[in-house]
């Protein structure tokens, strides 16, 4: 999975990698073209690149989210669709209630263990290309409720997440910011080659195993092929 980095080392400064773009404008690949992209350009020829751009433009401007709210963040998600924030400006106001017509799953709120299998099922029901935004602390990591016995500590244990939006709940603007990040990510996707979009890679999974309700916990509690957390930064030099 591409969104996993090598294990976190406590000493290294995390500023080495460009982790986030400045607020508001564009995203990682919005404006200038990087060297690798220029190389691609040369290889593919201009026609394919133009088609690629058209393809990315079409998809990035027509992200229909699944009408699917879990908890508090869902209210801010609805607020993002209301007049003040108006997610429609990005062409994303068409919240489809059926997963078959949705492109984006905004996991907005606490995913409980009782709910988790259903979230995975909804994700499996969505047609490719599909994207997932984990909105809010609970969806990312369990958030304030992570100590709970019935709370899944992050939806990325079961399905791949493209964008994480922290906050409890994130402001509607933060969701819009996450959406622009996602748009930039989609625009930067390629149709072929090693950097091709996830859904175009032959070996990438589109459906994920749905955990069963067990006697004490979900079975399995997370998808080991997907969720590979780095060793905790506290693993060495334990404090007592």
């Amino acid at each position: 999975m591409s969104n996993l980095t090598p294990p976190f080392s406590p000493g290294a400064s995390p500023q080495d990698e460009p982790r986030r773009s400045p607020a508001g404008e564009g995203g990682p690949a919005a404006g200038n073209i990087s060297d690798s992209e220029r190389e691609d350009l040369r290889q593919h020829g201009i026609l394919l690149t133009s088609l690629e751009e058209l393809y990315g433009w079409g998809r990035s401007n027509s992200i229909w989210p699944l009408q699917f709210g879990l908890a508090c963040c869902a209210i801010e998600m609805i607020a993002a669709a209301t007049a003040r924030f108006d997610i429609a400006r990005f062409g994303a106001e068409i919240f489809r209630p059926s997963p078959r017509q949705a492109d984006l799953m905004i996991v907005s709120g606490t995913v409980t263990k009782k709910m988790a299998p259903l979230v995975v099922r909804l994700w499996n029901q969505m047609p490719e290309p599909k994207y997932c935004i984990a909105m809010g602390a609970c969806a990312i990591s369990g958030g304030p409720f992570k100590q709970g016995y019935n709370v899944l500590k992050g939806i990325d244990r079961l399905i791949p997440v493209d964008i994480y939006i922290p906050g409890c709940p994130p402001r509607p603007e933060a969701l819009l910011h996450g959406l622009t990040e996602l748009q930039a990510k989609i625009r930067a996707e390629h149709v072929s080659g090693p950097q091709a979009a996830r859904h175009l890679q032959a070996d990438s999974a589109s459906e994920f195993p749905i955990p069963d309700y067990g006697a004490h916990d979900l079975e399995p509690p997370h998808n080991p092929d997907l969720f590979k957390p780095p060793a905790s930064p506290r693993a060495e030099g334990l404090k007592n």
Partner: protein
Amino acid sequence: MLGSGILKGLAVTAKNFVGSYHNPARMVTQEYPDVQPQLPANYRNFPFLVTENATDPMGTMRCVACQICEKECPPQCIYIEKSKDKKPDANGKLQLYPAVFDIDTAVCMSCQLCVEVCPFDAIKMDHVFAIAATNRFSGLLLNREELAKPNTYFHEIRPDEAAEVDGRLAAERAAAEEKAKAAAAAKATAATATKPATGGAAAP
């Protein structure tokens, strides 16, 4: 008569439609990426650590690693390791400092309790919200370098509170200096003047 209610409704929506072209009360959209929201000074989203000096943020951190916030944080998203050595703080008093200060923004619920319980005005709430990341393990765990922001930034986002805090700290500093002076004077009168450990001036 049948239909009058429906016609009234249509009239209201028509009024809103027309109003959306000329009445700002009926066109409330703020175009976010182009227009940044006007955040009130009290807005709180994720904590940051106040440092006195922008050029040497790690050296002038107000935090003394007392770990009260770590204990009080309801979702336990703060992790602090005390330093082994001590550094002089703004008052010149030797204090511990956090060797590690991590906040997991993937967990933080911005409840502000860490700010409320902090006796040193060292941790304050930030205004940043656009920090979406593609990797939560490295992208959302903030360390002390990322958390440290200068006092000038604090003044920028919350002028009233920052001025109040500065005033309070200045008063404390003055009191401390007075005390130190008095102690020094006492010691001077005692005529066994060894340089007191806490006698150095505040390193700004």
